[in-house]
C-alpha cells in the first residue's frame, strides 16, 4: 500500500465513531455497563489509529504534496449550486483529527469509569461518539457546507450532553442556552457561506484557496467577519461567551472533551482554514486579535474568585481560547494551532482531575470544601499539578512555550495593545489557577464532616454547581476520599505527561519548530512574523515569566494554608467590590438574562396579544362579521347553510366527476 492508498481511507476516521454511535443508540441499553463504554472507546481508538496511519502517510510525502482529497458523493445540488461530501487530509486537518481522536479516546476511557452507575450510560456513550464523529467531519471536510454539518453536529451533541441529566432544571436550561447562543454564530456561518458562494460560485476550500486573493477587500472582510461571528459563538468569545460556564452542568468528561479540548477550538480551526479571507485585510484580523485579547483578560478576571471547581476551569478555557484568537488574528496561525494542541492536553487533564476530585468528595464542586487532597489522591494530584504549572506558563512546560510564542508574535506583528492585554491576562492566569490548585490539593482539609452532623440530603434534581456568592454548605465527607481505579487515573497521568513535554512539538529554535514546519503547506502565502533579534524574543520570555511568577507568588502567599475560615476568601476580601464584579463575570450574563426575560419578552408578548389577537384578528373578524351580517344570522350559517352549501358543492362535484368518467370511458 502506498501513502495515497492509506489516505484514501481517511473517510473511515469519522465513520468509525459514527458507526459506534449508531450501534449504541440502537443497542446501548442492551449492551449496558461497561460494554457500551468500551464499544465507544474502541471505536474512537480505532479512529485514532487510522489518524496516526494517515499522519505517517502524509509525512511520507514531499512537503508541498501533503494534501489529499477523498471525494464522496454529491450532497446538495440544484441550479448553480453543487456541494458534496469530501474529505481533505492535510497537515492542518490531520493535526486536529489526532487531537480529537487521541485526547478523545483518553476521555472516553475516563468516562467508562466516571459514568459508572448512570441510568443513561448507553445513551451517554452514543452521544459522546456522535460528538467525536461530528467533530471529525468538521475538521476533515473539504468544503464549508460539510464543515457546517459537523459544526451543527457538535452543537447538537453539546446540547444533548449538557442536558444529560435533564431532570436537573439547571442542566436542561443550560443546554438550550448553549444551543441558542451558538445559533447566533451559526447565522454568521450561513451568511458567510452565502457570501462565499455568491462571490466564488463554490464552497470548496480548493476554490477558496485560488479565488480568495482576487476578491475585493470589502467582500473578503465581510466573509471574514461573518465567519468570526460563528467562531465567537462556538469558541465562546466575549459577548457570545455566556453559554460556556453554564455548560459545566454536563458530566465532567463532557466538559473536558467538548467544552475544553476540542469543540470550543473549532472556531480557531475555522479561522485557520479560512485564513485567505483574513490574511490580506487588516481590519478583520484586528477585530479577531482584539476580541481574543479582551476575552483572555476579562474571562481571566472572572475566573479569579469563583468558588466552583469547574467554573474556574470554564472561565479559564474562555480566557485561553482568547489567546488562540489573539494569535490567529495577528496572523500567527501556527502559534494558534500550537496553543490549541497543548491547551487540549493540560485543560483536559485539569478537567478530568477535577472530575475525580468531585467524585472523591461526594459530588462536591465547592472549592471551599476541599483542601489537602494530594494526600488521598496522589496520582490525580500529580497530573493536576503538572497541568496547572503548564497552564500558568512555568518553563519548560508546554504552556510556557505556547503562550510565549503567542505573545511574541503579537508584539513583533506590531500589535503592542494586543500584546499588553495578553500580558495582563497572564497575571490573572497565574492567580486563578494557582488559587484553585492550592485550594483543592494543598492547605487545610475542609471536607470532613464533624461527628454528629447529619449528611446533607441528596436530591438528583439539584445541580451541584456552586454560584459565586452562595455560602458554603456543610462538609460532605465523614471518611477519607479515595483514588479511583486506573481507568480514571491513567488518562489524567497520560495527559499530564503531555502537558509537561508538549512543548517539544514546537520549540522556538530554527530546526525544532516541528509543528510550524509541518503546518507550512496549510498556511501557504501567510507572511511569517519573525523576531527582530534573539535578545528581543528572550526579553519577551523574561517579561511574561516574571508576570506569571508574580501571580504565582501572590496566590501562594494568600492560599498556602488553604482557607482557615471556610467562608472567607482572602483574594475576594482584598478585591472588595471589584471582587464581586469579577465573581459575577462583570454582570454580563445577568444583564442579558434581565433583557431577554424583561423588555424583550414583554415586546414579544405585545406582538402576540396586541398585533396577532388584537390587531389582525380583530380586523379580519370585523370584515367577517360584516359579511355575516349582510348575509344571514351566524346561527343559521352554522347549523344549516354551511351543510347545505357543502352538500351542494359535493353533489355538483360528484356529478362532474361522474360525467368525466363517463366521457373518459366513451372516449
Amino acid at each position, binding site marked *: 500500500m502506498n501513502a*495515497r492508498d492509506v489516505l*484514501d481511507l481517511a*473517510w473511515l476516521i469519522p*465513520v468509525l465513531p459514527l458507526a459506534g454511535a449508531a450501534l449504541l443508540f440502537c443497542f446501548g441499553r442492551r449492551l449496558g455497563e461497561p460494554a457500551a463504554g468500551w464499544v465507544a472507546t474502541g471505536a474512537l481508538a480505532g479512529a485514532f489509529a487510522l489518524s496516526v496511519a494517515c499522519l505517517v502517510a502524509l509525512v511520507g510525502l514531499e512537503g508541498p*504534496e501533503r494534501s*489529499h482529497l*477523498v*471525494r*464522496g*458523493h454529491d450532497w*446538495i*445540488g440544484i*441550479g*448553480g*449550486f453543487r456541494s*458534496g*461530501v*469530501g474529505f481533505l487530509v492535510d497537515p492542518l486537518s490531520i493535526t486536529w483529527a489526532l487531537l480529537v481522536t487521541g485526547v478523545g479516546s483518553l476521555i472516553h476511557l475516563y468516562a467508562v469509569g466516571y459514568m459508572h452507575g448512570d441510568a443513561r450510560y448507553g*445513551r451517554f456513550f452514543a452521544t459522546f461518539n456522535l460528538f467525536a464523529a461530528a467533530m471529525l467531519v468538521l475538521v476533515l471536510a473539504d468544503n464549508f457546507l460539510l464543515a*457546517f*454539518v459537523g459544526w*451543527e*453536529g457538535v452543537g447538537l451533541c453539546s*446540547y444533548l450532553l449538557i*442536558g444529560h441529566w*435533564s*431532570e*436537573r*432544571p439547571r442542566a*436542561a436550561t443550560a*443546554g438550550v442556552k448553549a*444551543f*441558542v447562543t451558538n*445559533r447566533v454564530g*451559526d*447565522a454568521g456561518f450561513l451568511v458567510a457561506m*452565502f457570501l462565499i*458562494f*455568491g462571490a466564488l460560485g*463554490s464552497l*470548496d476550500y*480548493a476554490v477558496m484557496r485560488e479565488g480568495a486573493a482576487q476578491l475585493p477587500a470589502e467582500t473578503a472582510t465581510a466573509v471574514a467577519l461573518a465567519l468570526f461571528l460563528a467562531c465567537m459563538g462556538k469558541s465562546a468569545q466575549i459577548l457570545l461567551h455566556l453559554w460556556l460556564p453554564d455548560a459545566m452542568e454536563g458530566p465532567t468528561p463532557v466538559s473536558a472533551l467538548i467544552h475544553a479540548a476540542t469543540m470550543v477550538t473549532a472556531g480557531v480551526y475555522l479561522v485557520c482554514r479560512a485564513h485567505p479571507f483574513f490574511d490580506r485585510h487588516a481590519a478583520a484580523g484586528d477585530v479577531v486579535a482584539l476580541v481574543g485579547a479582551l476575552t483572555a483578560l476579562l474571562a481571566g478576571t472572572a475566573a479569579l474568585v469563583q468558588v466552583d471547581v469547574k467554573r474556574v476551569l470554564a472561565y479559564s478555557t474562555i480566557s485561553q481560547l482568547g489567546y488562540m484568537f489573539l494569535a490567529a488574528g495577528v496572523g500567527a496561525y501556527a502559534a494558534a494551532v500550537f496553543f490549541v494542541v497543548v491547551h487540549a492536553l493540560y485543560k483536559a487533564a485539569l478537567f478530568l482531575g477535577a472530575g475525580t476530585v468531585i467524585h472523591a468528595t461526594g459530588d462536591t464542586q465547592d472549592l471551599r470544601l476541599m483542601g489537602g487532597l494530594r494526600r488521598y489522591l496522589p496520582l490525580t494530584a500529580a497530573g493536576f499539578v503538572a497541568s496547572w504549572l503548564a497552564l500558568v506558563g512555568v518553563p519548560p512546560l508546554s504552556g510556557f512555550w505556547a503562550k510565549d510564542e503567542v505573545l511574541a508574535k503579537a508584539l513583533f506583528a506590531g500589535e503592542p495593545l494586543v500584546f499588553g492585554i495578553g500580558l495582563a491576562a497572564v497575571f490573572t492566569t497565574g492567580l486563578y489557577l494557582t488559587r484553585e490548585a492550592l485550594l483543592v490539593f494543598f492547605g487545610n482539609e475542609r471536607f470532613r464532616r464533624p461527628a454528629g452532623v447529619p449528611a446533607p440530603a441528596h436530591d438528583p*434534581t439539584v445541580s451541584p454547581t456552586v454560584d459565586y456568592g452562595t455560602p458554603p454548605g456543610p462538609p460532605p465527607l465523614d471518611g477519607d476520599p479515595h483514588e479511583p481505579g486506573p481507568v480514571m487515573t491513567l488518562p489524567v497521568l497520560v495527559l499530564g505527561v503531555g502537558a509537561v513535554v508538549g512543548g517539544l512539538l514546537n520549540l522556538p529554535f530554527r530546526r525544532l519548530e516541528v509543528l510550524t514546519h509541518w503546518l507550512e503547506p496549510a498556511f501557504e502565502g501567510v507572511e511569517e512574523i519573525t523576531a527582530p533579534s534573539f535578545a528581543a524574543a528572550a526579553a519577551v520570555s523574561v517579561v511574561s515569566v516574571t508576570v506569571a511568577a508574580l501571580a504565582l507568588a501572590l496566590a501562594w502567599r494568600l492560599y498556602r494554608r488553604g482557607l482557615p475560615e471556610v467562608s472567607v476568601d482572602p483574594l475576594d476580601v482584598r478585591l472588595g467590590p471589584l471582587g464581586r464584579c469579577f465573581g459575577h463575570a462583570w454582570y454580563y450574563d445577568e444583564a442579558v438574562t434581565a433583557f431577554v426575560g424583561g423588555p424583550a419578552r414583554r415586546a414579544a*408578548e405585545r406582538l402576540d396579544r396586541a398585533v*396577532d389577537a388584537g390587531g389582525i384578528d380583530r380586523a379580519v373578524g370585523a370584515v*367577517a362579521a360584516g*359579511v355575516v351580517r349582510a348575509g344571514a344570522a351566524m346561527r343559521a*350559517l*352554522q347549523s344549516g347553510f354551511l351543510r347545505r352549501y*357543502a352538500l351542494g*358543492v359535493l353533489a*355538483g362535484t360528484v356529478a*362532474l*366527476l361522474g*360525467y*368525466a*368518467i363517463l*366521457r*373518459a370511458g366513451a*372516449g
Partner: protein
Amino acid sequence: MSDFPVLSALIAVPFLGAAATLWVPEQRAEAARAVGYLTTTLTLGLAGLLVWDFRAGVGGFQFVEEHRLSSTLGVSWIVGVDGYSVFLVAVTALLFLLGLVASETVTDRAKAYTFWFLLLEGTIIGVFCSLDLISFFVFWELMLVPMWFLIAGWGSAARRYAAMKFFLYTATGSAFLLAAILALGFLHRADVGELTFDLRALAAWDGPPPGTARWLFAGFMVAFAVKAPIWPLHTWLPDVHTEAPTAGSVILAGVIIKMGTYGILRFCFDLFPGAAVDAAPIMLTLAVVGILYGSVVAAMQRDAKRVIAYSSVAHMGFVVLGLFSLTVIGVGGATFTMLSHPLTTGSLFLVIGMLYERRHSRLIDDFGGVATVAPLLTGAFLVATFAGIGLPGLSGFVGEFLSLLGAFLAHRWWGVAATAGVILAAVSMLWMVRRMFGGPPRGPVASFTDLSWREAATVVPLLALSLFLGVHPRPVLQRIEPTAARTIERLTERTGRRPPAADRARAHHRPAAAGRVPAVGHGDRR
C-alpha cells in the same frame, strides 16, 4: 404500465373508499377502519408507483391525461404531475395512511370520521394533480367540506369557532380565486377565440395586459396567501390547529397549507410572470416578516399546538422567501421545504397528540420532565424539532439553506434578515422542549408510558424519511430541478429580468482530486 391512468386512479380511489364506508353498518367501527386502511394503503401504493415511474431530468408534466368535458364551458379533465407536485402527492398519501393509524384513538363515530378523512384525501390529491383551472378550483373548494366536518365533529372545546374561522377565511380567499379564474378564461377567449381553462394553454398565451394581469395575480394570491398562510393572513392557523383532532392537524400542517404555496408555484408564476416579478419585493418582505414574527410569537404561546402552528407560519415564510427569490436554487429549496415540513411538523403534531392522550392537556406548563419517564417519545420529538429548525443531516436544512441562499443571491439584505430567523426558531422550539421534557417529572407526568408500537409506527416512518432526505436529498432535488429551471427560464424570457449569475448551472469547477475516487459512505453511485 404507461396506459394506466394512474393519476385519475389516485384521485378516484379515496373517493371510492369514502363511498364504500357508507355501506358499513354504523356500529362496525373496525370495518370502517379496515376500509380506510385498505384505501389509504392502495393510494400510497399508487403514489409509490407514480414516484417510481416519474422520470428525472424532465421539466414538463408527466402522466398527463386529458379529456374534454364540455366545449361550451371550456371545462376539461386534465391531470398531470411535474417536479413540484409529484412528491406532494406522495407525501399526502403517506400522511393519510399514518394519520389513520394515529386516529385509532378516535372511537366516536368512526364510520363518519373515516368517510370524511378519505374524502379529504381525494380532494387534496385532486388539487395537486389538476391542470384545468376549473377542476382545480372544484377540488380546492371541496376540500373545505371534509375539513370542516373533521374539525367541527372531532375537535376540542372551541371547535365550532375554529371551524367557522377556517371556513370564512378560506372561503373568502376562494371567492377571489374563482373570480380571477373566470376572468382569465374569458379574457383568453376574447383574445384567442377559444374558451379553455387548460393551464398549459393559458400559460402559453401572452396573457392579459399588465394592468389586468396584476389584478388577476392579486386575486390568485389572496386565496393562496390565506391558505399558505402568508403573514398577516395567518391568524386562522393557530386556532384551527389547536382545535383540530391530531390527524387533522397533521394533514392541515402537512399538506393543506402547502396547497397555498403550491398554487403560487403552479399558477402565479406561469400565468402572470410580469406581475410575479413586480410583486417579488413585497412578497419577500412579507416572507421575512412572517419568518421573524412567527418565531417570536411562537415563543410566547402556552399551548404546545399553537407553538408549532406559529412555527409553521415561519416555515411557510421560508417557502415564500425561496419562491419569490425567483431563482432555481430558491424555488428548488422552497419546493424541498414543502416536502420536508410535512414530515417534521407532522411528527411534532403526532407526538403532541400522544402527550395529549396521556395528560389530556396541551398546555406546556402541565408537562415537565417527560424526558425522564419517556425517553423514546422525547427522542422522537427531539429529532422532529431539530429537523424542523434546520439541523444539517435532517431534511429541514436542505430546503431552508437553499431558500435562504436563493433569497440572498437575489436580494442580499432580505436573505440576511431571514437568516436571523434560524436563531429565533431555535429559541421558540427548544424553549418549549425545555419546559415540557426537561426538569423533574411533574405530577401526572411521572406515570407516563413510553412510545407504544402503534405510536412508533406513525412517527418513525416520517422521521426516517426526514433523515434519509437530509442525508441524501439528491433523488428529490434532481426531479425538482428541471421543473424549477423551466419556471425560472420562462420568467426570464417573458419579463427580461436577469437572474443572479451564481444561480445558473455551470460546469462545476471542482479541482481534480489528488487521489482516486473511492466509494464513500452511503454507497450512492448512480
